[in-house]
């Protein structure tokens, strides 16, 4: 009897809101960042190993997929930074009112897009 009982639907039916979206994205970007850091380390070690590698990487990065990956990594880091600050403030016990958490969540989402553009432009024009 006990085992036959079905489990009621959960994530399939539950409505998303800003705060839960930011929370799950925080986790996903965290995983992406670990992969990204590994890739960056790999890139750096490739440059140490041989001169020709520089051109291969350069070719890869200037391709459409390469640009998408770079932008994705910049966004992922931007999102993680802002979301981490949000969680940090929450750890001090602030920002738990529904309205405030909604606003800070929106700041994280739109802020991460703005930061991505800023970082990309800085990288493109000054480095």
């Amino acid at each position: 009897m006990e085992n036959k009982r079905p489990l009621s639907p959960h994530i399939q039916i539950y409505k998303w809101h800003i705060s839960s979206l930011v929370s799950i994205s925080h986790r996903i970007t965290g995983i992406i960042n670990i992969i990204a850091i590994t890739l960056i380390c790999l890139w750096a070690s490739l440059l140490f190993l041989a001169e020709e590698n520089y051109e291969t990487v350069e070719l890869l990065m200037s391709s459409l997929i390469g640009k998408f990956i770079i932008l994705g990594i910049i966004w992922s880091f931007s999102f993680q930074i802002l979301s981490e600050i949000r969680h940090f403030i929450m750890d001090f016990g602030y920002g738990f009112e529904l309205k405030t958490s909604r606003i800070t969540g929106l700041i994280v989402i739109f802020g991460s897009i703005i930061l991505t553009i800023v970082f990309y432009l800085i990288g493109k024009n000054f480095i």
Partner: protein
Amino acid sequence: MVQISLPENSEIKKGKYFKDKTGSKNLRKVNIYRWDPSSGDKPRIDTYEVDMDNCPSKVLDILNKIKNEIDPTLAYRRSCAHGVCGSCAMNMAGKNGLACTTAHAEINGDIDIYPLPHLKVKKDLIGDLDGLYKQYQSIEPWLKSNSKSETKEIFQSKEDRAKLDGAYECIMCACCSTSCPSYWWNGDKYLGPAVLLQAYRWIVDSRDEERQARLKKVADELKLYRCHTIMNCTSACPKGLNPAKAIAEIKKMLATANI
């Protein structure tokens, strides 16, 4: 490991369709999760056409109307109908709440009604809350006083009493705990927002003398720190309380206290 999909016996099928017989022009479709323990079938979604011209304003009124006029086999919990008892907690339009205080006018389109998420279903909209009640018992939700003043009234200042505001009003309807993804995946160990709010209520009570022991008991990777401030609990609470903040306060106390 997190299991996102539903187990095989919990997959939902399309159910029966109850066409309107009143001839009303003001109809709404109501989709309700059904499971009959005696049939052995998988859960299904039944659809009812409900005459809204003769239906009061809350979702519970719709359920009563269906049970009284269309399909008497529908099972759900309800009692006070005034948002005090917490019996009619369920998932409406993707959000947990009390059917008796949720206005159907606030829901757009068809009205989807499910039992509280991630519970073993007993029948239709009735979920098994035994696990939650056991966890509630585990935090020993009663005043513990060892001093000799037990025979007399224990005085509490207005300031100390004010600390309980926002915690004592909880009706244990389980809307918050069953809205929490962390509680879905780790409900056997993580206490969940409802129980942690009550733990907080006794930790901050100035009359209680077991504060340290209570804090120590709750200070556990799985019992407390599975809260990742997703805030589903606070947004679900039908009484407007803030379990997420209470959990953050417990974490803060543990970070600053010497235990």
